């Protein structure tokens, strides 16, 4: 037995993906936990930006929503919602967009809208787009954090809420999207990155104790695997301590 859970590993791996000083547009839930963990470990100067309009928030405890008072209280600036999208997100000022997903497909397209084929009579009605379509379009790069399962990792999302690489490597340019798109998908099993040639999400790293077969089983398409798979270093005691302190305060 390891001294940590797969969920903790996922969050730690996500935190590590954020470089110090980066400007990060943070979705609520796992992205927020990971970003706040990064700020408490290797990236004290990470700039957290929430779609509620808080720029440079430094919350001492995890916010439950993107509009918690702790975000406004600790932010460098609080701006109106139209401004956060128009002046800060849209022009490509944000380094990293950090998103979750209900479904993600082999080209990194994300669905948070409906499960099922019929938009008007969905099997499951999800919350919808929120800020994600424009975060996915305009951040310089996108990181996705999502648990690995065949229901989530699907051949083709039922609804494209946020564009990854569309149907292949040239779609973003054709669509005129300014950001690079999803450069990293972090799951509870490992890391996926787009193949530089095909843009297909490819397994490039496994968390300790996971093998590629297990990742492939949890993926709803024939998962491509990089020739040499890296292994994620175990969560350090400092990382685990910081994460558990964060989550206990939640």
């Amino acid at each position, binding site marked *: 037995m390891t001294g940590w859970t797969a969920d903790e590993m996922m969050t730690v791996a996500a935190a590590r993906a954020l470089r110090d000083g980066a400007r990060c547009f943070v979705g609520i839930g796992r992205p927020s936990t990971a970003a706040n963990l990064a700020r408490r470990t290797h990236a004290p100067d990470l700039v957290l930006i929430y779609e509620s309009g808080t720029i440079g928030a430094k919350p001492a405890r995890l916010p439950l929503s993107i509009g918690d008072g702790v975000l406004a209280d600790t932010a460098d600036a609080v701006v109106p919602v139209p401004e956060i999208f128009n002046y800060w997100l849209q022009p490509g000022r944000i380094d990293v967009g950090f998103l979750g997903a209900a479904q993600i497909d082999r080209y990194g397209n994300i669905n948070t809208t409906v499960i099922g084929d019929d*938009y008007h009579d969905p099997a499951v009605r999800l*919350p919808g787009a*929120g800020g994600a379509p424009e975060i996915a379009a305009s951040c310089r790069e996108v990181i996705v954090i999502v648990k690995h399962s065949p229901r989530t990792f699907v051949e083709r999302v039922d609804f494209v809420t946020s564009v990854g690489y569309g149907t292949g490597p040239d779609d973003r340019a054709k*669509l005129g999207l300014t950001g690079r798109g999803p450069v990293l998908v972090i799951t509870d099993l490992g890391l996926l990155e787009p193949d530089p040639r095909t843009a297909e999400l490819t397994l490039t790293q496994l968390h300790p104790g996971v093998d590629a077969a297990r990742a492939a089983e949890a993926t709803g398409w024939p998962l491509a695997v990089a020739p040499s798979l890296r292994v994620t270093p175990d969560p350090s005691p400092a990382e685990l301590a910081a994460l558990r302190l964060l989550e206990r305060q939640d």
Partner: protein
Amino acid sequence: MGVIASLPEAVAELVRDGATVALEGFTHLIPVAAGHEIIRQGRRDLTLVRMTPDIVYDQMIGAGCARKLVFSWAGNPGVGSLHRFRDAVQRGWPAPLQIEEHSHAGMANRYVAGASGLPFAVLRGYVGTDLPVHTATIKPITCPFTGEVLTAVPALNPDVGIVHAQRADRAGNVQMWGITGVHKEVVLASRRSLVTVEEVVDELDPRPGAVILPSWAVTFVAEVPGGAHPSYAMGYSERDNDYYLAWDAISRDRAAFTRWLEEHVLNRVPAT
């Protein structure tokens, strides 16, 4: 002209069956008490507009007030789905609910256009997503200088815009601070408006980060302390996260919801 009125008076005057009504507040300063008053007054066939329909809209939809929802993210923030909303969309209970679905960037810009007296707004948005397939109010527009194709969305000009704020003075000037979301935009975009406030004071002393709406830009002001609960009013209250968590169970079940509605909304007379 920022007329100070009671909440029931203001809602009765402003909100009519069939109206387009926007209750805004981006997780902060949500006018929940005003939503409950609309339920109590039995309004029907409303087109409800809100970027983040959360608990208050789940309640209004479950109570049968809504015919249509215009929105960009319908969920219980940090908790999960909105079960009354899902029940209405997926099973038509208690009434079928049409939806018009956007992104946050699109909705925010629709309010900006509405506040600006323009028929539409332009953004980089929606491109490559399936939203334009299902939402008629998303169209391409070409830059007359560069030829680049961008996205246009039409202005939102609700019949009534409702927000909560911290304070007003006796002349009806409104002051709010913290996360102000699209508060200013929805009030200015709407034909008529109501601002519920924590308190009416003699003088609005300046505050860092404060946004002011002059009295003449607001139709009614109603003093409703705690009127944003379970959301919060910075400087007055904390977000009641337990309420959001508890809502999940209440709202999953039609009977439990109906009991809750009777007890907490329909049989409760507002203090004002």
